[in-house]
């Protein structure tokens, strides 16, 4: 074991990120109120700097820090760059919103930076307490950010529910940790896996402890039946924070769960068989409940909340496919996380642009959006098709890889259920698209489509129909929306390019993903 401080320099990106957050807090005090959006730009520039720093310093490094509490490896580097990038895009899409709708921008960006620090550490931690502390660094920032609209009753309510359930689930998680510790005397992931594979007399305390850890993490992931906080927190939170909750915090929780499962549970192969059943049950429940309840939603944020619960189900199904002799499951999960995040960023950037222009966030408000602001409608439509899993978009590719892995692992029923619920999800995504493209009852014929960057889901006649913007026949009583700001346009265009690009040509990303998952599942 190397000395505790030998290779501390490997944490430079984390120190830089923490420094950046404090810098934002301090500069916030010096800037006059109307210049505060500079803080957003400072955060973006800083995050890009940290990305560059990590890419220069860390590739190829394999090390553990603090005597094995944190790991610097391909997996953590991949997620570090991923989370920092997500942070950049979330901040870019929230700068306008924060200026228009929120007070205290300095703390907003500062907290966001701290939560990104927490996420980075979650992907690196190899010990339960370290994982817990990083998780709380993320959660605490999120509690505050959900409550950010101080005088909005819904924001208060969402945040109260979030913090009560969050604290409750932390207590359950910690009790699980304490039982594992008292049964095994270790909290490191490799120690747990060694103990699990060698132990012969299984004490019930150990099982209860591990189960409680799974329950606690289930709350953080918002997997059914531990999902009840998610829709309320999503709906109450200001839109950029909803985006952040749906995308980044979910990806971070999965980064932690994936490392925990593959380092602590999967190597103990015969015990892992028993855990697979439990994870598969959670996955099946999440897919079913998330997608079915989403059918009944009117609020866009709530719709996205339930849809994200459904996606958690798919990713958990991928977790069932984790094994020591195949990287397929881990690859599928990581690729799915990336694809899902990129697609959701486009959705939320479009929703933020819509909210900035109208102040509305219900599905019926979107009626006629194809005429009022064709680009927004196109962005939402494309990303919803991607989330629903239609080909040529990244959503199809990611579902294809993930469900293949599940089927290869022998869980055909789970893969079947995932495909079935994907079809269900297409229904509520198409509802929104119908609202935007058909609702104002224009007599526009379904002409040859001329929208967007020229890409189209082949087949699926209904989608082609709904996909056609009717901008040449403005019929009467709609008023066009102002163009989305340049910032949001940039985010959406980049996102759309990535959604289509990764859907058509995922190979370069998959190569990176394979490097990441090989770091946590060396046997593969």
């Amino acid at each position, binding site marked *: 074991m190397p000395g505790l401080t030998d290779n501390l320099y490997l944490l430079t990106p984390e120190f830089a990120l923490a420094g950046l957050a404090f810098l934002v807090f301090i500069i916030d005090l010096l800037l006059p109120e109307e210049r505060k959006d500079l803080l957003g730009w400072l955060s973006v520039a800083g995050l890009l700097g940290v990305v560059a720093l990590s890419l220069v310093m860390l590739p190829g490094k394999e090390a553990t820090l603090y005597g094995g509490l944190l790991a610097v490896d391909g997996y953590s580097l991949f997620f570090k760059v991923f989370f920092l990038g997500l942070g950049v895009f979330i901040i870019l899409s929230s700068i306008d919103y924060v200026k228009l709708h929120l007070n205290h921008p300095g703390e907003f960006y500062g907290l966001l930076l701290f939560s990104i620090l927490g996420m980075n550490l979650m992907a690196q931690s190899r010990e339960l307490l370290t994982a817990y502390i990083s998780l*709380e660094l993320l959660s605490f920032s999120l509690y505050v950010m959900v409550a950010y609209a101080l005088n909005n009753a819904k924001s208060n309510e969402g945040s109260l529910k979030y913090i*009560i359930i969050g*604290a409750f689930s932390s207590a359950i998680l910690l*009790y699980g940790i304490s039982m594992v510790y008292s049964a095994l005397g270790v909290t490191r992931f490799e120690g747990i896996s060694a103990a699990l594979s060698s132990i012969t007399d299984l004490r019930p305390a150990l099982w209860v402890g591990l189960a409680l850890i799974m329950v606690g993490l289930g709350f953080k992931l918002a997997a059914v039946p531990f999902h009840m906080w998610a829709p309320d927190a999503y709906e109450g939170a200001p839109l950029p924070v909803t985006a952040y909750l749906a995308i980044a915090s979910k990806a971070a929780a999965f980064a932690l769960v994936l490392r925990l499962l593959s380092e602590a549970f999967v190597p103990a192969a015969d015990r892992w068989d028993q855990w697979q059943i439990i994870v598969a049950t959670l996955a099946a429940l999440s897919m079913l409940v998330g997608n079915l309840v989403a059918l009944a939603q009117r609020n866009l944020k709530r719709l996205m909340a339930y849809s994200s619960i459904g996606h958690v189900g798919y990713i958990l199904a991928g977790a069932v496919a984790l094994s020591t002799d195949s990287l397929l499951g881990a690859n599928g999960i990581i690729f799915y996380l990336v694809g899902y995040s990129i697609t959701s960023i486009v959705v939320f950037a479009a929703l933020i642009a819509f909210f900035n222009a109208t102040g509305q966030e219900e599905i019926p408000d979107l009626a006629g959006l194809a005429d009022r602001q064709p680009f927004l409608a196109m962005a939402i439509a494309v990303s919803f098709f991607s989330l629903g899993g239609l080909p040529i978009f990244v959503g199809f590719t990611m579902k294809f890889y993930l469900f293949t892995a599940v089927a290869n692992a022998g869980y055909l029923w789970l893969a079947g259920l995932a495909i079935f619920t994907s079809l269900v999800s297409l229904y509520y995504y198409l509802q929104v698209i119908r609202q935007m493209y058909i609702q104002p009852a224009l007599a526009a014929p379904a002409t040859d489509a001329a929208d967007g960057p020229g890409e189209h889901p082949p087949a699926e006649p209904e989608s082609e129909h709904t996909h056609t913007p009717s901008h040449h026949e403005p019929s009467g009583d709609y008023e066009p929306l102002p163009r989305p700001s340049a910032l949001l346009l940039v985010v959406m265009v980049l996102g759309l390019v990535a959604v289509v690009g990764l859907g058509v040509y995922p190979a370069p990303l998959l190569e990176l993903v394979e490097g990441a998952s090989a770091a946590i599942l060396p046997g593969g």
Partner: protein
Amino acid sequence: MVPLVYFQLLSAALFIIGLYGVMARRSAVLIIMSIELMLNAVNINLIAAASHREGWGSFVNFDGQIIAIFIITVAAAEVGLAMAIILRMYRNRATVNVDEIDLMKW
């Protein structure tokens, strides 16, 4: 030395009482207090386990105490945050009764 199992029973009892409190209390403040009980149950469990460590080999293992100190710190921060949010709630809605906090359902 008091056997480990007594501590574990005490801890489990505290945890269950806390769990019951979270389910049964209607005031958000009391719910937070019940969560604190659950966290203290965790601390008892950890410290008891760490001081009964002789079964685990020769090297000294203070992990339990260290984790407990971290949990105390994090719990204090959590309560601070929760109380701030509850205060906000009270100023906007004049209630902290979780039965009446029902703007959003399903």
